[in-house]
């Protein structure tokens, strides 16, 4: 019975349901791995941008300008071109430039500059009085970063992470060009190119569920970390 309903409602998807499940797994895999790595890197570079900025706690013109420029360059390259340009490097780093594995590296390179900017922006909102107070307590730069900048920006970081995660999901639809697969790619290949509406709907719903979970997690985290 249920099978019939599904077949009726999803005439095309039901035929390639294993491909669809595979795509969901691929999206989750790419999201988890690339997301985690970009989170770490973005946090790192965002902090570097912040502290090396003129007037920052470790003001360093050279590092700041270099990183600032590199991020601008990376953000200027259309993602699809970046994927292509990265292929040799991707192979070097992860062993293959193809498939879901090969898609993760370009995803990381694609999203990290964006996330770094978001983090820089999030941390810039800190009340300078708090930094002073940390300095007065004899905090080292590392301690200032951890105990003041990061700790006090958690709500802003959560918001930045939520926005970036959703963007990452968006980018993961593009890595189909190296066979990365994923839900977005499924939607494009079946829904868009083969005009199978049910594939589009199912994909968008799957993505919506992921995005909604991200947003919900973000919100509940925000509630727990906002104290005014």
């Amino acid at each position: 019975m249920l099978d019939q309903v599904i077949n009726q409602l999803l005439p095309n998807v039901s035929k390639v349901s294993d491909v669809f499940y595979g795509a969901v797994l691929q999206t989750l895999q790419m999201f988890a791995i690339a997301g985690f790595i970009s989170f770490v890197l973005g946090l790192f570079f965002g902090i570097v941008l912040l502290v090396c900025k003129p007037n920052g706690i470790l003001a360093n013109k050279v590092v700041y300008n270099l990183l600032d420029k590199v991020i601008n360059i990376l953000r200027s390259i259309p993602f699809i071109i970046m994927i292509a340009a990265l292929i040799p490097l991707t192979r070097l780093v992860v062993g293959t430039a193809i498939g879901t594995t090969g898609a993760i590296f370009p995803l990381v390179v694609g999203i990290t500059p964006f996330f770094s900017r978001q983090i820089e922006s999030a941390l810039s909102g800190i009340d300078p009085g708090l930094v002073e107070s940390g300095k007065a307590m004899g905090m080292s730069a590392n301690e200032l970063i951890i105990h003041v900048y990061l700790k006090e920006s958690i709500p802003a970081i959560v918001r930045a992470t939520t926005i970036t995660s959703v963007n990452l999901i968006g980018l993961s639809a593009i890595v189909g060009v190296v066979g990365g697969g994923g839900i977005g790619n499924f939607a494009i290949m079946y829904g868009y190119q083969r005009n199978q509406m049910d594939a589009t709907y199912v994909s968008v719903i799957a993505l919506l569920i992921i995005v909604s979970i991200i947003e919900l997690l973000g919100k509940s985290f925000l509630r727990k970390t906002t104290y005014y």
Partner: protein
Amino acid sequence: MSEDSFIQMKQVTKSFYKDTHAIEVLKDVNLEVEKGDIFGIIGYSGAGKSTLIRCINGIESLTSGEVTVDKQIVSNLTGKELRQFRRQVGMIFQQFNLMPSRTVHGNIALALRNSGLSKQHKEQRIMELLELVNIRDKRDAYPSQLSGGQKQRVAIARALANHPKVLLCDEATSALDPQTTKSILQFLKDLNRKLGITIVIITHEMGVVKEICNKVAIIDQGVILEQGDVFSVFSNPREPLTKTFLETTSNLSKVDELIRMNSPLVQLEEGQIILKLTYTNTTVSEALISEVSRRFYVNVNIIASDIEIVNDMLLGGLVAVLSGEQAGIDQTLTYLHEKNVVVEVIRDARSSHQPIAAECL
């Protein structure tokens, strides 16, 4: 400069730059704080007090000059040395600067992060501090859930957490009720006495200075006008500003206003005068009023007074209506004059008054 000086500011200037033009906030400031001093800094709002105190631990960079604390030149300290130095200097900020995302407990724990205490000892220390500032029930509250005074108390606890050698207080009790203020001042005094901790305290409350400071400096528009030990500065202010400050906080000044407004309270009968007596060098053993009352048959009718013991000397004075025979009044004035009391006739209803009164002004 003194051998004993523990905190020393030498020709310190500090300017803030606004576009191209500079606002000079500290001008050639020289200051000496000895080890164990409780050093008060007073001055008008905007005089540069906060800026000055922030130069001591190097939170504010100097435009020129030098600050030395415990023989270390602050602006030369970097990296680990600077951090080590700052850990020995507790600071209470005028704006508290508590970490909004940490509870009261968390804020204090943060100050203890490198204290080397075991977890258990840390908790114990936090408890002690919370009790000290009487805020134990707010242990798990966030700053946004605290009242102004509670925030200030957390800031105090935090500054004291690491048993600092120097404590910099920027209006440490401005948001506190008198009772809490008193108990905190008492505690600071005890700390100072027992551990020899040096305290620099900015305050608007003259009461605070009189209560715990042994030295005081008056700063105006970035310039230190006067500094010295509290009693001598307060009993014998050299600068008009110091005088004004003391007067405004004294009960005696209220009489001026009554006189200005010609209040019925200060309407004199024929022969009476209103005197303001200011003690400069009076010991507790002199019974001046009793003396003159008996000797010269005058009535001394106190309408305002403000006398307190500061550094074991009497400080302050009183305003009184003097009535009696003209001769008695004249003799009283002369007598007080001899006794080193500053006498000021602020209203005179004697039919023809003698020049002697003017002399005593």
